[in-house]
């Protein structure tokens, strides 16, 4: 089990941090969003509920848009559009 970061299309990336607890998911998300360009999309996959609350606050603070939130069986798939 390791962190996976991939480009799926132009301007679309996937970050999979399932299996990781705080603070890994939010720190990896911040790191990756910092590298992405404005308008790029990030599909974020994680399973640590408390990281979600922090990531949501981080997006609100930075102005990044949470386009979609899907939660299934303890695994969260969120789509974030970078400001």
């Amino acid at each position, binding site marked *: 089990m390791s962190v996976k970061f991939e480009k799926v299309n132009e301007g679309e990336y996937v970050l999979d941090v399932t299996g990781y607890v*705080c*603070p890994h998911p939010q*720190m990896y998300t911040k790191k990756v969003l910092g590298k992405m360009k404005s308008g790029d999309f990030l599909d974020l996959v994680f399973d640590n509920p*408390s990281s979600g609350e*922090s990531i949501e606050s981080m997006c609100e*603070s*930075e102005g990044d848009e949470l386009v979609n939130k899907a939660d299934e069986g303890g695994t969260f798939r969120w789509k974030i559009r970078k400001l």
Partner: protein
Amino acid sequence: MANGSSAEAAVTGAVSQVGVGRLHRGTAIALVILGVVTIASLWVLSVDQRLIYLISYLWFGLVYGILLQYGRFCMASAVRDLFSVNVPRMAVGVMIAVMLYSLTAAAVTAAGVSPFHPHPLGWHILIGSAIFGFGIVFAGGCASGSLYKAGEGNGGSMLVLLAISFVQAWFVSTGTWSNGLVPSSWAESAAAKGMPAQLSVTDGWFDQFMAGYIWDLSGTNVASMLGMGGTAAGAFIGNALIGAIIPSAVIILVLYAVYFRKGYLRRAGLQPGNVSWQQEAYGVWAMLTSSKKTAFAGLGLGAFAGLQMWVVGGLRDKYQIFNFGELLHKMGYNSGLSMQNTVFDPGYWYITTQEAQFGGWVMKHLGGNFDDTIFFGLENGLPNPLMNAPLLMSLGIILGAAMISLVNKEFKWKRPNLETAVFALAGGTLMGIGARLALGCNIGAFFASATNGDLTGWIFLAGMALGSYFAVRVMNWWLERKSAKEMDLDLDNM
């Protein structure tokens, strides 16, 4: 048309059945947990009604667990997320909880049933809390956070709990080998206490730390400092307003100015140099309510933490006891009591000491001897976990968190990988040592202290923040190193 409608209805029915089935599975397991806890509680009460004292801890634990998981309420996040991702959400939630708990605690103090005693003031708080704060970043949660995350099925957090439990039990019973690390002034002071020979207080680092250092310190609260000790005015104005609410309000304003204001002004379309105080006030309110779950949990925890003090204080009055050990002794349960016939029984929310008792109880049954330690032998005892009221509160937190995460479909068994397992054990080890040095964790030494007018709680928070700050720097270094090896972050050439 009719066929189409029925086909559509069948599909809708099937879908809703799937949905209901899923909902029922998690909810059903949660209801089974609730049912088992209820039946077990009723059975215990049928054995002896005085065990309501024990059961009350368990049920407060359940409520804490539900609130902690619902609000993702973790005090590690309060300091760590500030330094790592610039998010003040949890720090704000903690301050909300502190303000409300200070008021409910003041009401309990004014009613004359508060079980709270101020902690001794000394350097041990800053040193212990800094070690604890360093550990929580690697453990992925604070003492209470690790309990509720264990309830979510997080294996890493379960390892943290084991590390905290056994490391504390080992640390408080350090033997002869550690005598060389004891300052001579502690050894002399410990020897002069005239304690019973079977405690061997001049043997072992922790015993001499307690008898030769801690016992020579004293603690107080703001009400007493202002000459208003034992009065309602002292409880509300001294302990709550001056000791907790004003410091919390100042921290909230600092959090707004440093972490929230810039983003808020951008979202509100305001220019930084041209903002009225009303707009600033709206900004502070927006920060307080930005995570409604966290704010709600903060209010709930503040209310129930105060209520627990009132309930335990009332039960002590009813049974004419100062400590649950006396009640156990009266009922004929003498196994595991300290030599003073006491057990650990804070009367309010606490986490780490009962975990140390769990570790010690297991180690004792594997052949360890803890009777000569101050921590277990003289003060806290080593009762059977099922008769350990605060430990049942911790179990309640795990079960409460499991119940609500099952209902909300957030429960998931998560087996730690090697990296998270090593971090969990290392973090839990530091948390255990830090908590024992500081005489408590983020709950007992900070949350329950700062809210009762004991200013040592704020010293603990400062030390915890300091330790977390350095741990975040180490964690950043680790993630940089790891991502450079395992992840391609050169986005332009992907």
